[in-house]
């Protein structure tokens, strides 16, 4: 039997994916994802930073969700940092502060547009709280979130950050529904990772940091537009713990169209790659346990594998055959009428590739198990947004992510100087 390079690459990708899925399923069977329920027994001061850049229309909702947190108001301080918005964000914020005088909301302004990390650090320097939270201005948090997240810190001195379950708020179109599905699966996975100290990124919206630790490791740094990833790497490098919980929820707005989706993911993936280059010594380092030996190599290699896979397979199975077809069609002067006249559906069992069929069945079964568990533990219904959402995610997401990875590699190889880091 002749085996092509594309086939070998597909097998490698399949084996690696299979291995990782089985590894995480074993982790799930051994450790589960539910954490012990902790009741809040004390109400320490919590500082919240809300970096704002052109969030007119969104910022009031975000501040509403903070004000409505079921937490003593005198134990909350909210820093709204306007990063030179060009819309009416400032007016909306000041108006809000005037109307809610009972809440400690502090308005800050950057002199020049300086980026999210700068705004967050500005708030961090002024923060008096024992805990520090950042909430993006396009996200809202559920009222009980702090009560569910804070108690975990009382039982673990090395716990640096608690991550909430992030969900997509009311997805409207198919792209947003795909992301809704993606977030549920990702955060289910992240809760598994958390069980063996493998969380690699604490997302921007409402991750609760122990301020003392955050300050000790140097606060938030400028890091290729993915500061949340960098700070997580730094926490891991210093052997602190990142904990994912599934009972506290925060809702965010995803990109609505493919262009914005591509931009967002391009920024995330590019930032991931560049930060990983900065922290390359952690990759395959036993010093960091499973995080160094499994998680970081997985994150690092996934991009290469995605690009390799889509590059080779699309060349081997799409571009090359298509070119051949067009070439052959030219020989018959593109006269397809004959094929249409003689067209008949026929089944030939010899044409079935049983090996790939078996691999496909195993993947679908394991994938379904993961999806069902993810939905169960994130308290969502599989068909909440129609029957098409999950199949659309399964079929399209990998392809979409691979396309973004191709763009990232292209940018890194050919447009490096033009990147505005």
């Amino acid at each position, binding site marked *: 039997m002749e085996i092509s390079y594309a086939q070998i690459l597909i097998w490698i990708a399949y084996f690696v994916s*299979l*291995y990782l899925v*089985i590894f995480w399923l074993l982790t799930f069977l051994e450790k589960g994802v539910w954490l012990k329920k902790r009741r809040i027994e004390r109400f320490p001061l919590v500082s919240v930073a809300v970096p704002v850049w052109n969030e007119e229309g969104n910022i009031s909702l975000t501040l509403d969700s903070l004000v409505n947190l079921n937490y003593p108001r005198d134990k909350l301080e909210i820093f709204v940092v306007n990063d030179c918005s060009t819309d009416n964000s400032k007016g909306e914020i000041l108006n809000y502060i005037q109307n809610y005088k009972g809440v400690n909301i502090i308005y800050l302004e950057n002199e020049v547009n300086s980026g999210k990390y700068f705004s967050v650090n500005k708030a961090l320097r002024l923060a008096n709280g024992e805990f520090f939270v950042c909430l993006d201005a396009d996200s809202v948090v559920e009222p009980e979130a702090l009560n569910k997240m804070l108690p975990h810190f009382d039982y673990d001195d*090395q716990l640096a950050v608690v991550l909430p379950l992030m969900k997509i708020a009311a997805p409207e179109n198919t792209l947003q529904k795909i992301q809704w599905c993606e977030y549920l699966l990702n955060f289910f996975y992240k809760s598994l990772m958390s069980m063996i100290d493998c969380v690699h990124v604490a997302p921007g919206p409402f991750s609760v940091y122990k301020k003392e630790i955050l300050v000790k490791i140097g606060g938030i740094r400028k890091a290729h537009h993915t500061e949340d990833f960098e700070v997580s790497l730094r926490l891991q490098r210093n052997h602190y713990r990142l904990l994912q919980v599934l009972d506290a929820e925060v809702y965010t707005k995803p990109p609505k169209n493919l262009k914005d989706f591509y931009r967002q993911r391009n920024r995330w993936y590019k930032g991931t790659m560049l930060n990983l280059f900065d922290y390359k010594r952690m990759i395959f380092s036993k010093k960091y346990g499973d995080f160094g030996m499994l998680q970081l190599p997985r994150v690092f290699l996934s991009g290469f594998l995605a690009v390799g896979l889509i590059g080779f397979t699309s060349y081997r199975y799409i571009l090359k055959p298509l070119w051949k077809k067009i070439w*052959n069609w030219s020989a018959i002067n593109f006269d397809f009428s004959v094929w249409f006249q*003689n067209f008949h559906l026929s089944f030939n069992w010899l044409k079935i590739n049983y*090996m790939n069929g078996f691999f496909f069945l*195993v993947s679908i079964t394991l994938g379904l198990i993961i999806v069902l568990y993810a939905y169960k533990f994130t308290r969502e219904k599989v068909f909440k947004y129609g029957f098409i959402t999950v199949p659309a995610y399964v079929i399209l997401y990998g392809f979409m992510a691979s396309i973004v990875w191709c763009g990232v590699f292209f940018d890194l190889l050919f447009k490096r100087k033009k990147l505005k880091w």
Partner: protein
Amino acid sequence: MYVIFCFFMVERALSKKRYFIAFIFSAAIFLIGLLLGLLLTGSKLEFVEKYQQDFRTQSMTFDIQGALLEEDICDFQVEEFDREFNMITEQVSVMEGELGKYDEDVLRMKEYYSLLEIRHWMFIKGLKEDCGRDYNIILFFYSNEEEECSDCEMQGYLLGYINQKYDNVFIYSFDKNIQNSALGLLKDKYNVNGLTLVINDRVSYGFMEKEEIEDKLY
């Protein structure tokens, strides 16, 4: 300071046991898939070979019946015979696609297939010459080697189109690199050299356009 700092650090564990068990499971699934593929490919080969054997038996039966009963060959209805032969053609082509053109089983299967083709060709040629049937017969000698014959694939595609378009065209494709004495005789008869087409006993060399082929059919 670093030592004190480390003292309070999270103990980083390696889930070696889980790595190992996950590897065993995934390797087992992967091997099952590979073995299943190999076993079923083997059974596919057996099926095609058996089908070819049945066809040979059938064609021999026609020969013997004709000789013994002195049946008039001109009464013979070619459709069923032709349908089965086309089935074999498709099966050989599928197996070549799956196992590759250099696979030993495929080469053996193609050698046998070439003999069946010659047998079929002789039969159809007899019907054409002795019974005056309005048949067009094309022999196509090709090579699978890209450097030896870059136009062969395209010519094959074009002949597939001709075959679909005209009901009375019979096309026999022979891999000229298959070593078989009967095929060798046929190659010598038409002085095969590179891409060779024999349309109704007239020999042409090199790629032939659609219009040229159609002109030679009528």
